[in-house]
């Protein structure tokens, strides 16, 4: 019964995807739902292939006639061709790859290459650009990740409003094939997880000196957490990483980023002294705000990756 309901939900979602929001109104959905017991275990998408199914025909008909007409196909072809032509034209007008005069054309590139080290204190020019010159871009990107988690939380909490017992049973069913209590995987995870976490922290901490930074290091940290969660039970990882941890770490990180970057821009725009010393470029404690900002971005990315995975896996946090 439980599984059937899941299929039902999934089928109605597919219907919505295929036919748009208006094609299937409430009555039809109810009609479809009532027919479900007659053909258990099958999804309605398959049923709709049979022409004998009345309700499916009604749902499919207007859309089908619309999509099969010649002018619709011609229009689709024309739009695709126009898009391809546009993209090809854009590629054609870009500077030739690897040409000798490409770098000289751009004053901005030259400026970055010359000034990044003394102005931001970063040996790695890319980090200097994305966290100092384009700090607000990165702020937006970090917020996008946070908003993605919030959206997934909202979407999946539809399941959460169902019967509590049913939800727990669903989770148990989905975790049945998980390789818990697998000694080989657990030994490997016990050995590998610290190494992965240390590597991620190294990438983050060296972001302003060598290739890397908050995003890549955070992804590595998140992958390590996912590995740990797959090898051991949820109970073990919930000792140090719960929804509360995620909430506080993400919000505090974003708040710190916003405040620090806001202060930096405020003082910089008004020609004030920000009292943040750049230090000697090349040292680990240098670059002013770059190191803490890298850490903050890394925390947000790691939390996001792990939270997305957990919510898809378990349906809740």
């Amino acid at each position, binding site marked *: 019964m439980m599984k059937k309901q899941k299929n039902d939900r999934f089928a109605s979602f597919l219907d919505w995807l295929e036919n748009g929001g208006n094609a299937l109104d409430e009555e039809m959905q109810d009609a479809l739902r009532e027919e479900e017991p007659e053909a258990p275990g099958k999804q309605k998408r398959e049923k709709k292939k049979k022409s004998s199914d009345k309700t499916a025909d009604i749902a499919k008909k207007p859309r089908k006639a619309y999509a099969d007409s010649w002018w619709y196909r011609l229009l689709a072809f024309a739009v695709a061709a126009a898009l391809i032509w546009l993209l090809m034209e854009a590629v054609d007008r870009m500077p030739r790859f690897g040409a000798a005069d490409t770098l000289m054309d751009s004053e901005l590139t030259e400026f970055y290459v010359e000034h990044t080290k003394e102005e931001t204190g970063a040996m790695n020019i890319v980090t200097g650009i994305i966290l100092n010159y384009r700090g607000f871009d990165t702020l937006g990107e970090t917020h996008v990740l946070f908003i993605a988690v919030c959206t997934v939380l909202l979407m999946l909490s539809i399941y959460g409003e169902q019967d509590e017992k049913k939800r727990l049973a669903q989770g148990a069913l989905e975790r049945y094939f998980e*390789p818990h209590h697998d000694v080989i995987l657990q030994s490997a995870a016990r050995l590998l997880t610290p190494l992965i976490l240390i590597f991620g922290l190294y990438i983050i901490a060296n972001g302003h000196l060598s290739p890397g930074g908050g995003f890549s290091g955070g992804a590595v940290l998140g992958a390590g957490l996912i590995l740990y969660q797959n090898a051991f039970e949820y109970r073990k990882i919930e000792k140090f990483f719960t929804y509360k941890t995620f909430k506080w770490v993400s919000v505090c990180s974003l708040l710190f980023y916003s405040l620090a970057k806001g202060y930096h821009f405020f003082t910089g725009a008004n020609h004030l002294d920000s009292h943040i010393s750049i230090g000697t470029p090349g040292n680990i404690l240098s670059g002013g705000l770059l190191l803490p900002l890298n850490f903050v971005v890394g925390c947000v990315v790691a939390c996001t990756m792990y939270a997305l995975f957990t919510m898809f896996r378990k349906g809740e946090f």
Partner: protein
Amino acid sequence: MLEYLRQAVFAFLLLAGLFIQVTAVIGVNRFRFSVNRLHPAGMADTLGLLLMALAAVVYAGFSPVTLKILLIVALFWITSPVCSHLIARLVRETDEKHFEAEAKEWKP
């Protein structure tokens, strides 16, 4: 003389590694069931990678980079068998039909 010897060793290791990788690719394509396929795939990830990494070490000479290459080999030696084990376990738990057919076919 020593230089020639070094290059000979390098060539031998590289060719051996390539041979094993090619064998693994052919094996993965030729075998029919997923558990059979694990055998050549695991071979490529462990022995083939070791031989090719040793070839790189011999070609570039010994330096701190050598340690990094050997670390990569060590990580692969830890992770690749675990991956094979997990896939085999998943096949055994979910794909009973194929597993039975396989067992019948390969009975001596």
